[in-house]
C-alpha cells in the first residue's frame, strides 16, 4: 500500500542489487566469515609478490629463531622466514585447489550428465568406473597414482582429479535423472530439439546447485589432500614453500613449534572457511537438507 502523499523519490524503487550481492546478503554469519577469509587468501595469492616480505627461499636470519618482531613466525631449520613462506605457500596451494576442483567438476559433471541423460550402456560403463574409483580410500588412491607418476605438484594434481571426479559424476547424474523427467524437457523434445541441445539448454542449467555447493566444500578438502601428499613427499618438492612440506619439516622439530604453526593455521583457516561457506550455500539453495 503506497501512500499517495509520499514524495516520488521515496516511492521510486531503489537500485536492486545483483544476484551475487543478494545471495551474499542472505548468507548466515559463519558463511560470511568464511567468504571473507577465502577472499583474503585469494587477495594474498594475487598480490603476495608485491608485499614487503622476506624472500621465502633465502636464508634471512639465524636458524630456528622463535617468533619475533623481525620474523613474525620465526625461522625454520635453514633460516628462512616462516611467515613469508606461509603466505607464499598460498600461491601454490590455492591455485592448485582451484584447478583440481575445476577439472574434477568438469570431467565428473560431463560424464555424469552423459550417464544420466542417455542411460543404457553409457550409464553402465561410466557408473561402474565410478564404483571402482570410489572403492579405494581417497588418500590411498591418490598416493598410489602420485607414486606411480612420480613426485611433483603437477602429478599430485592429476592424482587428486582422479580421486575427485567420481563424486561429481554421481552428483550430476542424480540431478540430471531428476530434471530430465520434468515437463519442460518433454516440451522441448516435442518442440523438435535434438537430444544434445535438450541436455545443454533445458537440463544442465538446472543441475548445478548441488555441484556448486559440493565444489565449495571440496575446495578445502583438496587443499588438505594436496598438503597431505606433500607431507609424505609425493607433492611439492623442496625448496618450494608448500604448506604440506613445510609441516613435514616442522614435524621433526617438535620444540620449534612455530615452523609447523604457520602452514598449519593456513590450512586450518582455508578448510574451515570453505566448510562455513559451503554449509551456508547449502542452507540457502538446497531445500531438501532443511
Amino acid at each position, binding site marked *: 500500500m503506497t501512500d499517495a502523499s509520499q514524495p516520488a523519490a521515496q516511492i521510486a524503487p531503489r537500485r536492486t542489487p545483483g544476484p551475487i550481492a543478494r545471495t551474499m546478503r542472505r548468507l548466515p554469519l559463519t558463511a560470511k566469515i568464511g567468504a571473507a577469509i577465502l577472499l583474503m587468501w585469494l587477495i594474498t595469492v594475487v598480490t603476495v609478490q608485491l608485499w614487503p616480505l622476506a624472500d621465502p627461499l633465502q636464508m634471512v636470519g639465524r636458524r630456528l629463531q622463535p617468533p619475533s618482531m623481525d620474523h613474525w613466525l620465526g625461522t625454520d631449520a635453514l633460516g628462512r622466514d616462516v611467515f613469508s613462506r606461509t603466505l607464499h605457500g598460498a600461491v601454490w596451494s590455492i591455485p592448485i585447489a582451484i584447478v583440481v576442483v575445476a577439472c574434477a567438476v568438469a570431467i565428473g559433471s560431463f560424464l555424469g550428465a552423459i550417464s544420466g541423460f542417455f542411460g543404457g550402456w553409457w550409464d553402465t560403463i561410466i557408473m561402474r568406473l565410478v564404483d571402482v574409483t570410489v572403492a579405494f580410500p581417497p588418500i590411498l588412491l591418490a598416493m598410489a597414482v602420485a607414486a606411480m607418476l612420480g613426485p611433483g605438484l603437477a602429478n599430485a594434481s592429476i592424482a587428486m582429479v582422479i580421486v575427485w571426479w567420481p563424486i561429481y559424476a554421481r552428483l550430476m547424474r542424480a540431478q540430471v535423472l531428476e530434471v530430465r523427467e520434468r*515437463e*519442460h524437457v*518433454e*516440451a522441448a*523434445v*516435442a*518442440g*523438435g530439439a535434438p537430444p544434445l541441445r535438450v541436455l545443454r539448454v*533445458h537440463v544442465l542449467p538446472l543441475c548445478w546447485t548441488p555441484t556448486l555447493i559440493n565444489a565449495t566444500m571440496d575446495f578445502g578438502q583438496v587443499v588438505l589432500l594436496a598438503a597431505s601428499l606433500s607431507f609424505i613427499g609425493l607433492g611439492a618438492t623442496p625448496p618450494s614453500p608448500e604448506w604440506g612440506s613445510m609441516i613435514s619439516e616442522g614435524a621433526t622439530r617438535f620444540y620449534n613449534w612455530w615452523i609447523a604453526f604457520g602452514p598449519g593455521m593456513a590450512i586450518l583457516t582455508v578448510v574451515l572457511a570453505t566448510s562455513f561457506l559451503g554449509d551456508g550455500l547449502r542452507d540457502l539453495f538446497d531445500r531438501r537438507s532443511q
Partner: protein
Amino acid sequence: MTAPLLEMTDLRIEFTDADGNRAEALRGVDLSVDSGEVLGIVGESGSGKSIAMMAFLQLLPRGARVTGSAKFRGEELIGMSSARIRKIRGKAIGCIFQDPLSAFNPVLRLGDQIAEAILLHDRSMSRRTALKEVERLFELVAIPQPAKRIRQYPHEFSGGMRQRAMIAMALANRPELVIADEPTTALDVTVQAQILDLLGDLRKELGIGLVMITHDLGVVAGIADRIAVMYGGRIVERGPTDPLFYNTAHPYTAGLIGAVPTLDGTGALRQIEGTPPSIFNRPPGCSFAPRCTVAQPVCHQTDPALRVTGATDSACHFPLTTVTPEVAE
C-alpha cells in the same frame, strides 16, 4: 477428396513392465483430423487419450511398442527416423501442455525460449528476427506489452498469460496441426473460457487442425467440430459434436454428459459407479460393461466393434439410440 491432415488407423500401444506383464494401453484407435477442424478427445485418466498423441510424435518411453499407422499429410509417422520426426515436432505439429508453468524452462526468459524453438527449425534466421517474431506471436495470442513480456521469466507470468505464451510457442513455427493436451485444466474457469475462445479464433484465422485432449466434455462442447470419447484404450463413441450430445449412443458418453453440472440443475449430479479397469487386467468383453447400467450378459463376453449407430459411431451392443432414448433428451 484429399487425404486428412492426420489419420490414425488401428493404432495400438503395448507396454511390458519389469516382470514381463504386458499391458495394452491403446487397443486399435481410428481417428482423423482435417485442416481447420477441431477434434475433441474426451476420456478419464488412463483411457489412452494423451498416449495416442504421444505415440505418433514418438514421445513414449522406450518400453512402449507402437503398431498400426498414423499418417500425417500422407506420411507414415510410426517408425519414422528420429532425425525426420524431429523436423515435424514443433514445426508441422505444435504441442500445448497441461501445466504451463512446468512446461517452460524456468531459467530462460520466455522470449529467448520461444525464439529458441523458432531457431531450431530455421537456422538462417537471426536471433533478433526470431525475437521480433515472438513479439508478433505474443500479440497474436493477446499478451499485452509483448516487448516487455518477452524479457520476463515464466514465473513472472500469471497462469492465463503463461498458457497464452504456451500457445504462442506451439504456433511459433506456423504448424498445420496443434495438439492441446488438457490446455485448460490448470486454469480457473474464467481464464479457461478466454483460452478456449483464443484457441477457437486462432483455428479460424490460421486454418490449423486442432486436437483437443480433455477429461471435461464441457471444454470441447463449444469448440470441437467432432468428438471422440475414449474408454479403456479404445474409442467408444465418435461423431460430430451435436449428435454426440443430443443423440448419444454409448452409455458411457451418456454417463459423462449426466455428470456435467447444469446451470439450472437442482437435482443431484449423476456419477458413473466404479472405477476404470486396470490395464493389466481388462475384462474379456466390453471394458465398460462392469460399470454399465444397461449391460447384458453378452457385454461381458465379447467386445463390441465400433460401428455406425444413428448419427454417431459407437462401440456398444445396445446403443441408446436404438434402445432407450431417455438419457438423450
